[in-house]
């Protein structure tokens, strides 16, 4: 809403400069987008919130200023000269068949007008408000709309068939060519203004007039429509038609039904002034929606309960009066000023459909009085504050990942369906958008893999080849039509595990890096069990599934090298490693493990290490070696570790060399050479027997 300063002054004698007015308006609820000093003087650009249609006119803004500055508002009372012989009611009939859509319809008729360009002052005012000038009569209807905030429509009276207006619902399949030349298909529920006893649509009620009856330069007689349409009906209609106009904005937010007749009179007055002619006597006014003004009580007790600080009677009453609420003290303490028991009965003005409750009045008083006048204070907390249940687990996890060199990523979960499918387990039902912005963002990610692979792709495409990322986010899936959001950790890595530096050579990130990093975070939850297998989008030779807790527990995630088939889709030309974990069980185990953790006294005696270098057939795993040694049940064995692994020179084909380091430790006594030799002998024979291992050296 563009508010010309000099126009505003016709309604309120304000002397403050425009900048100050703008600032005061902003601090009392009318947002100000800017102030322009143009050819037509100073114009304040006000952004009126959707609950205040009354401020979509000069009068409404002037009322705000009159309340802020406590200046009288100059009301408008147009008194156009009327014909002594001809009556409007003889010239036109109005019938409202859909009172739930149209609460009031007024019609006036002006005969013998001269349609011509508007005078300069009128053109200037419209231009300052951002509207184009068309002709005097059309401009006048727009002028009144801007002045009083109430939309009007003017018809070429002679083009209206039968001069019998009917307002009804549109019929299914009905069409209307509007003023803008577009033929529109209508929907039942859209209010229609029709002529010929309802046979022909001549206007979308409250939105836009029809093309067949519009004012032209040959128009002689004019019918002024000034009506009131139901806000919800108008919003439904504009949404269906995708058509928003100055009129639909005002009716859609709730225009003032009482203003319809006044605005019509004002329009007639200006037409007589600028286009001549004769106004038929009276008005045809059908008003099925007339309602008695609502009474609302405001008490000081409620004001204090909500606002926490007071406003004196004098200010409170002055504010409510200026805004049109006509406050009257109704409590028993009427004589006492600023009584804590004070109560005011207020009357809801017809232009303030948004004020219906006591709380609405509280806001009215507070916003004009000034929100800065309510002293800030910190409330006392009466209950203990709690973090999220998984706060500690997630914080520890995040810290550890960052320590391991991973940057935290945040991705947008909207992805292309084709991409999402690369990582989607066959049984996961995709959460698809009904109204996506694009194909590339048409579904919500079913896994974190897809968006983290996307983040790696971005980096590789921008020259960053060494990337380590993690994201703590959600998977979005449907299960039986119901949404399920699962918290997951996704890890992605590619490029150098260690970059070429002054002291060390470069080394590429490999599966062991991924496994080591995952085990470092797994330690927080008691350690992961790694097992063969995993989703088919991971390389079959370099992948694993992860479990927590006891053997046989459900897998909670997978890790590995991205399969070539999928890597090719992303055009990755280097190895990309990915892992994803379901965080629910990880957090659950974190607390379980933490609460059961107990101190283990440090051994007082030194441990003894023995290395066993064995040849093993390919396919035999370290886990089998470990299991074979542990199966011996030697209590002094405290650790079995893989110290070195070698294939190639001096190793028979089909075999590999593994250096197993076993630590012996007793809590009771220093181990003797004989004891250790005995343990070693048993280990060697176990490895030979159960695994077919051959001892290489010792």
């Amino acid at each position, binding site marked *: 809403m563009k508010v010309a300063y000099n126009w505003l002054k016709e309604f309120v004698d304000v002397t403050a400069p425009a900048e100050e007015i703008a600032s005061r308006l902003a601090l009392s609820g009318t947002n100000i987008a800017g102030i322009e000093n143009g050819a037509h003087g100073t114009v304040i650009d006000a952004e009126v919130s959707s609950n205040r249609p009354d401020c979509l006119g000069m009068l409404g803004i002037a009322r705000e200023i009159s309340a802020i500055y406590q200046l009288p508002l100059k009301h408008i009372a147009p008194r156009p000269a009327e014909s002594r012989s001809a009556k409007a009611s003889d010239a036109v009939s109005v019938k409202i068949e859909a009172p739930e859509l149209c609460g009031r319809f007024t019609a006036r008729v002006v005969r013998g007008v001269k349609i011509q360009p508007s005078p300069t002052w009128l053109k200037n005012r419209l231009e300052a408000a951002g509207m184009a000038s068309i002709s005097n009569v059309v401009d006048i209807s727009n002028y009144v709309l801007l002045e009083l905030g109430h939309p009007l429509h003017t018809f070429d009276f002679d083009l209206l068939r039968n001069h019998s207006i009917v307002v009804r619902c549109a019929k299914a399949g009905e069409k209307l060519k509007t003023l803008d030349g577009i033929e529109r298909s209508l929907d039942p529920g859209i209010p229609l203004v029709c002529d010929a006893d309802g046979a022909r649509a001549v206007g979308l009620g409250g939105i836009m007039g029809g093309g067949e009856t519009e004012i032209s330069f040959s128009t002689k007689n004019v019918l002024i429509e000034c009506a009131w349409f139901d806000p919800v009906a108008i919003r439904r209609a504009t949404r269906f038609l995708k058509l928003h106009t100055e009129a639909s904005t005002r009716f859609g937010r709730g225009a003032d039904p009482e203003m319809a007749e006044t605005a019509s009179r004002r329009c007639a007055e200006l037409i007589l002034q600028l286009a001549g002619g004769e106004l038929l006597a009276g008005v045809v006014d059908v008003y099925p929606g007339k309602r008695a003004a609502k009474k609302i009580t405001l008490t000081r007790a409620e004001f204090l309960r909500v606002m926490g600080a007071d406003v004196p009677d004098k200010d409170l009453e002055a504010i409510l009066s200026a805004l049109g609420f006509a406050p009257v003290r109704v409590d028993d303490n009427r004589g006492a000023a600023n009584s804590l028991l004070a109560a005011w009965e207020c009357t809801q003005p017809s232009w303030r459909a948004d004020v219906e409750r006591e709380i609405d009045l509280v806001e009215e008083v507070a916003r004009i009085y000034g*929100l800065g006048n309510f002293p800030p204070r910190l409330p006392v907390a009466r209950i203990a*504050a709690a973090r999220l249940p998984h706060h500690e687990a997630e914080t520890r996890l995040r810290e550890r990942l*960052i320590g391991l060199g991973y940057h935290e990523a*945040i991705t947008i979960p909207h992805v292309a369906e084709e991409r999402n499918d690369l990582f989607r387990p066959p049984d996961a039902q995709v959460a698809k958008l009904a109204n996506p912005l694009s194909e590339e963002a048409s579904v919500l990610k079913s896994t974190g893999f897809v968006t983290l692979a996307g983040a790696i792709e971005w980096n590789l495409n*921008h020259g960053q080849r060494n990337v*380590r990322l993690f994201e703590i986010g959600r998977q979005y899936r449907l299960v039986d039509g119901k949404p399920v959001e699962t918290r997951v950790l996704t890890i992605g890595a590619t490029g150098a595990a260690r970059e070429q530096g*002054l002291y060390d050579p470069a080394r590429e990130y490999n599966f062991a890096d991924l496994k080591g990093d995952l085990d470092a975070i797994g330690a927080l939850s008691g350690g992961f069990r790694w097992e063969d297998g995993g989703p088919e989008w991971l390389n079959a030779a370099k992948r694993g599934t992860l479990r927590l807790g006891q053997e046989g527990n459900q897998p909670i995630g997978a890790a590995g090298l991205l399969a070539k088939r999928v890597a090719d889709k992303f055009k990755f030309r280097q190895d990309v490693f990915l892992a994803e974990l379901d965080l629910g069980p990880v957090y659950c185990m974190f607390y379980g493990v933490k609460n059961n953790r107990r101190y283990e006294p440090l051994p007082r005696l030194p441990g003894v290490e023995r290395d066993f270098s064995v040849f093993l057939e390919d396919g035999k795993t370290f886990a089998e070696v470990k299991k074979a040694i542990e199966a011996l049940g030697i209590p002094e064995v405290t650790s079995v570790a893989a110290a070195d692994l070698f294939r190639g020179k001096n190793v028979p084909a089909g075999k590999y060399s593994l250096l197993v380091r076993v630590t012996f430790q007793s809590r009771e006594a220093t181990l003797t050479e004989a004891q250790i030799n005995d343990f070693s002998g048993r280990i060697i024979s176990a490895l030979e027997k159960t695994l077919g291992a051959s001892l290489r050296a010792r």
Partner: protein
Amino acid sequence: MPTVNNPTEKTLAELGAASREEVARLFAEVRTRFDSQIARPQDAHGWTILRVLWLGRKGVVTQITENWLKPAPLELKRVIGESLNSFKEHVEVVLADALAASEAGAEAALSAKDRVDLSLPGVIRPVGTHHLIRQVFQEIEDIFFSIGFSVVEGPEIETPYYNFEALNIPEFHPVRDDMDTFYLELPKGAPGPLLLRTHTSPVQIRTMEKRQPPVRVIVPGKVYRRDNPDATHSFMFHQIEGLAVDSDITFCDFTGTIDYFVKQFFGESVKTRFRPSYFPFTEPSVEFDVSCVFCGGSGTANSGGTCGKCKGSGWIELFGAGMVDPAVYGFVNYDPKKVSGFAFGIGIDRLAMLKYGIDDIQAFFQNDVRFLRQFP
């Protein structure tokens, strides 16, 4: 080196000294001998040998104690003792100083090739970073946690009831036009429409359904609006919702809480103001402004022109908030006559952009490691 004819190896009687004067002369001679020895420059090893010779178990000081002091006649003991102490102190101080000076000199003399070049990097162990959005979330959570706000979360896929209706936004409400919404495509027969929440406010309703007042929570999370992406719009962004409901919460408590938060976050010098505004789920509703952190609220940029960040107004709009509209309590079976409260919804991405001068919201979600590393 001590001479063979060392007087300290003999007793005073053997030296024929029986008077104070002769004792003084003997001490003077010893002192001269010491001073002449230490006058010659030594390396650290040389100083150690001298220390043994003079202060060691069989050194000169011990000899004087054994040969001069102990067998001396009573009348001379006092003067010998005093002279000995004075001499011993002199030897200790001089030797310690000389040794320290010698060590310092030795280090300085170390060859340049062994010296570290401090301008070279150490061994770089790459460390990751918290995402900036996460950092801002954490900072805000900590501030509100410190004044009694618990942290809760809620689903991102919501029903229209929680996202709109229960927040006093019925269908066809004009506010819905400002929150262009993503809807999910549901299989046939699935119950009700589902949408991506357009704000974190649905969690207000979910929280109040579960708890009775007093309620004091903040809700960090992702929200979605169907806006075409550009430098200031992303169809996913982050909010932190706040809600406090109790039997005695007033507007003054609300402004006090917000004021406290902003001063913690932006610093004590920041100025704040509340502008009346409109949201269907709060009343009175406000927009909250802070004095522009770029121009200090003057509206003039350092370069002299209009500050581009606040467009010369000196104020920056931060977020919307207000007292919870009594109509909302009706949806969660709270008695609007008995409770009151406030709610706010802070846009995190915008806040981070303001605080760190980031000019493109998309940068947050590209996850370029060069961007992430800038905020360790």
